[in-house]
C-alpha cells in the first residue's frame, strides 16, 4: 500500500529538529498517558523537567545528581556513537560496563588494606582494559569469522551478569560482610575511592571525564581525519577500501573506543556512587546509552545534552513517582517514547511516503 522513497535532499534543519520534536511529542503523548493514569499531566511534566532544576526543595541536590546520573550515559554513548557512525553495532555496552567495574574493583581490592596513591589511577586503567577486552571478543569474531557483532556483544551482557553474580558471591565477597553477597565498599577504602571532587555535591571524577570526553570526541570526529574515515566506512565500505583504509582496523577501533569508555564508566560508578560490586550493580546504563547516542544525533555535543535530558527524566521521574503516585512503568514508557518518536521522525525526514495502487 505504502512505499518509502528516499528523499534526495535531506533537510539538515529538520534533522536537527528531530530530538526537540521527539521531546515535545513525548511530553504531549506522555501527558495524555498520565492523564489516563489519574495524574495531573501538567504537574507530572513539570515535576519531571522543571522541579529537579528549579524547585527550591530539590534543585540543590538534584542538579549535581543529574550530572552524576548522566555521566555514565554520556561516556558510554560517546563510545557507541563512533561505532554506530561506522555501522559497527555494539549493543553490549552493558556487559563492557560490568566488566570494567569487575576488573577495576578486583584490582583495587586485591591490595586492600594497603594505601597508595598509585592504586586509584591504576584501577581506572585496569577498568578501562576490562571493558576493552570484553569488546574485543565481538570485534575479533566479526573480523575473523564475520560473526554478527550485534548478537555476540548482546549475548556477552548475560555472560557478564553471571560473572558479576560470581564475583559478588565468590571471589570479591566481603569477608566482613556477615555472609551477605557483595564486595567491600570501595568508598571506605581511601586509595580506591572515587570520592567527590566538589564537596557536598557528589560530583566525582567520572563526571569531569564525561565532559572532557565530549570535547575529545568532538575533535576526533570533526577535526581529525579519523572521523572522516569512520563516516566513510559507515556510508560506503567499498569506498573506504578504495581510499586505502583497512575496514577491519576501523572495526577494531570502534569497538576499542566503545568498550574502553563503557569500562571507564563502570569503574567510575563502582568506585563512586555505587561503592561496591554487587549482583544488582548494573542498572541498564549500557542500553539506555543507545537511546542517548541516537537522541544526540551521534554528535558529541548532542550526546551531552541527550544524556542530561535522559538523566533528568530519571531524577524527575522518581520525584513524580513518590510525589504524585505515578507508577514506575509509566516513566519507562515515557523514556521509551523518546526514542520511538525520534526514530519515526527520522524516517519521515529521510523518506517520502507514496501511496501505491493495488496492482
Amino acid at each position, binding site marked *: 500500500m505504502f512505499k518509502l522513497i528516499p528523499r534526495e535532499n535531506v533537510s539538515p534543519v529538520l534533522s536537527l529538529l528531530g530530538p526537540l520534536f521527539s521531546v515535545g511529542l513525548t511530553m504531549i503523548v506522555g501527558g495524555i498517558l498520565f492523564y489516563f493514569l489519574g495524574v*495531573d499531566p*501538567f*504537574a507530572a511534566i*513539570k515535576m519531571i523537567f*522543571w522541579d529537579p532544576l*528549579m*524547585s527550591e*526543595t*530539590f534543585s540543590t*541536590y*538534584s542538579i549535581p*545528581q543529574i550530572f*552524576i*546520573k548522566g555521566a555514565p550515559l554520556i561516556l558510554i554513548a560517546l563510545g557507541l556513537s563512533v561505532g554506530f557512525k561506522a555501522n559497527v553495532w555494539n549493543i553490549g555496552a552493558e556487559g563492557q560496563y560490568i566488566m570494567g567495574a569487575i576488573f577495576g574493583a578486583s584490582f583495587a581490592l586485591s591490595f586492600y588494606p594497603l594505601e597508595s596513591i598509585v592504586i586509584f589511577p591504576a584501577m581506572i586503567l585496569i577498568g578501562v582494559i576490562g571493558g576493552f577486552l570484553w569488546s574485543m571478543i565481538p570485534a575479533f569474531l566479526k573480523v575473523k569469522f564475520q560473526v554478527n557483532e550485534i548478537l555476540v556483544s548482546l549475548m556477552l551482557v548475560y555472560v557478564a551478569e553471571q560473572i558479576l*553474580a560470581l564475583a559478588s*558471591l*565468590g571471589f570479591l*565477597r566481603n569477608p566482613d560482610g*556477615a*555472609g*551477605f*553477597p*557483595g564486595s567491600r*565498599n570501595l568508598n571506605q577504602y581511601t586509595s580506591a575511592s572515587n570520592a567527590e571532587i566538589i564537596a557536598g555535591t557528589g560530583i566525582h571524577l567520572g563526571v569531569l571525564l564525561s565532559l572532557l570526553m565530549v570535547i575529545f570526541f568532538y575533535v576526533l570526529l570533526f577535526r581529525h581525519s579519523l572521523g572522516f574515515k569512520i563516516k566513510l566506512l559507515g556510508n560506503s565500505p567499498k569506498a573506504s577500501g578504495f581510499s586505502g583504509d583497512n575496514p577491519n582496523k576501523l572495526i577494531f577501533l570502534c569497538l576499542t573506543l566503545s568498550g574502553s569508555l563503557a569500562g571507564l564508566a563502570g569503574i567510575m*560508578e563502582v568506585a563512586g*556512587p*555505587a*561503592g*561496591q560490586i*554487587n*549482583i*544488582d*550493580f548494573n*542498572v541498564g546504563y549500557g542500553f539506555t546509552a543507545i537511546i542517548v547516542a541516537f537522541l544526540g544525533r551521534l554528535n558529541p555535543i548532542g550526546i551531552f545534552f541527550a544524556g542530561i535530558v535522559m538523566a533528568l527524566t*530519571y*531524577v524527575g521521574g*522518581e*520525584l513524580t*513517582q*513518590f*510525589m504524585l*503516585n505515578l*507508577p*514506575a*512503568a509509566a516513566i519507562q514508557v515515557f523514556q521509551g517514547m523518546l526514542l520511538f518518536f525520534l526514530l519515526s521522525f527520522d524516517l519521515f525526514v529521510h523518506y517520502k511516503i507514496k501511496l501505491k495502487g493495488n496492482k
Partner: protein
Amino acid sequence: MRQFLKYFSASCLFISMVITSSIAIAADYKVGFIYIGPPGDHGWNYQHDVGRKAVDEAFGDKVETVFQENVPESADAERVMTQMALSGADMIFATSFGYMEPVLNVAKKFPNVKFEHATGYMTADNVSTYSARFYEGRTVAGHIAGKMTKSNTIGYVASYPIPEVVRGINSAYLAAKKANPNVEFKVIWIFTWYDPAKEADAAKTLISQGADVILQHVDSSAIMTVAEEAGVYAFGQASDMSAFGPNAHLTAIINGWAPYYVKKVKQGMDGTWKGAEQTFDGIGAGMVIIGPLSDKIPDSVKKEAMEIRDGIASGTLHSFTGPINKQDGSPWLKAGETADMGTLLGMNFYVEGIEGDIPQ
C-alpha cells in the same frame, strides 16, 4: 520573536506557580516507603504496601504516606531516599536488604529523619532494622510438605544465597525430614527476587525432576500458577496466593508488617522512636502469619501443623533444636540445644542431609 519568548516564559512561570501552589501538602507527618519491585507482585512488596495502607488507615489525615516502586539496590536508592527526605519525609521504610549502605549514607545526611531498614544488620542513631523470623513459618510449611509429598521429592526455588534464604531452606528441610524421613530436597537458585519467567522455569525444572511439592523464597505468584497447571502442591510466599492455584495452594507464609509499621509510625509521631534497635519477630508477635490451610491437607496433618505453629508462637518449640549436624557432618547443635541469634543471622551452611552447595 524576542517579544514572543518573553510572553512565553512569563506564562510558563505563571503556570508553574499555579501548579506548585495547588499541590501543597497538609499532613503533619510524612512517611516514605521504597520497594524493590512493584507492589502488584502479590508477594514481598505487596505485603509491605499492605503495611503502608494500614498506616494510612490508622492515622488518617495526620499521616501522609508516599512510596516508590522498582528502586534498584544501587546508587539510585540513595538518590530516591534523599529526594524523599528533601520532600519532607519524617520516616523512611527501606524494605529490602540491598538498601543497607544507601540507608546509612542518607541517614548520615539527614539526622532528623528516622530510617527503618528491613532485613539488614547495620544500624545508626537514626537507623533501626527489622526482620521477621520467616523460618518459623517454614517449619510449619516444611512439615506439611513432608506429609503431602508422594514422590518424597520437595523442590525449593531460592533467590539469593543470603543467610535469610539459607535459614529458610534449613528450617523447612528439618521439619520435612522429621515428618517424613525419606524426603529429599532439590534447590534451584535463580539470583533474583522477582522474575516471574525465571521463577516459572525453575518450578518446571523441579517438577520434571520429580518434585510434587514446591516451596519458594521468591516474590511472584508464577510458581503457584505452574504448580496448578502441573497438578503439584505449592506454598504462597509473603501473601496468600490461593487465587493463583486453588488446588495447588496448601497454605501461605504471610508477612505481617502492618502492626510493626503502625507501631513505629506512632512512636515516630510521639517522640518515643529509638534508633539502633534491631527487631526480629516471628509468629508470636504476628509478623509471620500462617495462612488458611487447604482442604487438600488431611485433618491429622492440619492439627499437627497448628500444634507446631502454636508451639513456636508460645516459645515451647524452636525451629532449630538439636541434635543438628552441619552438611559436612560436623556437629552444630547438641541434643536439646537451640540455635543462637548470631548463627541464625549469619547462617551460610546447609544442615546435614541437604544435597548440593550454597553458591559461593
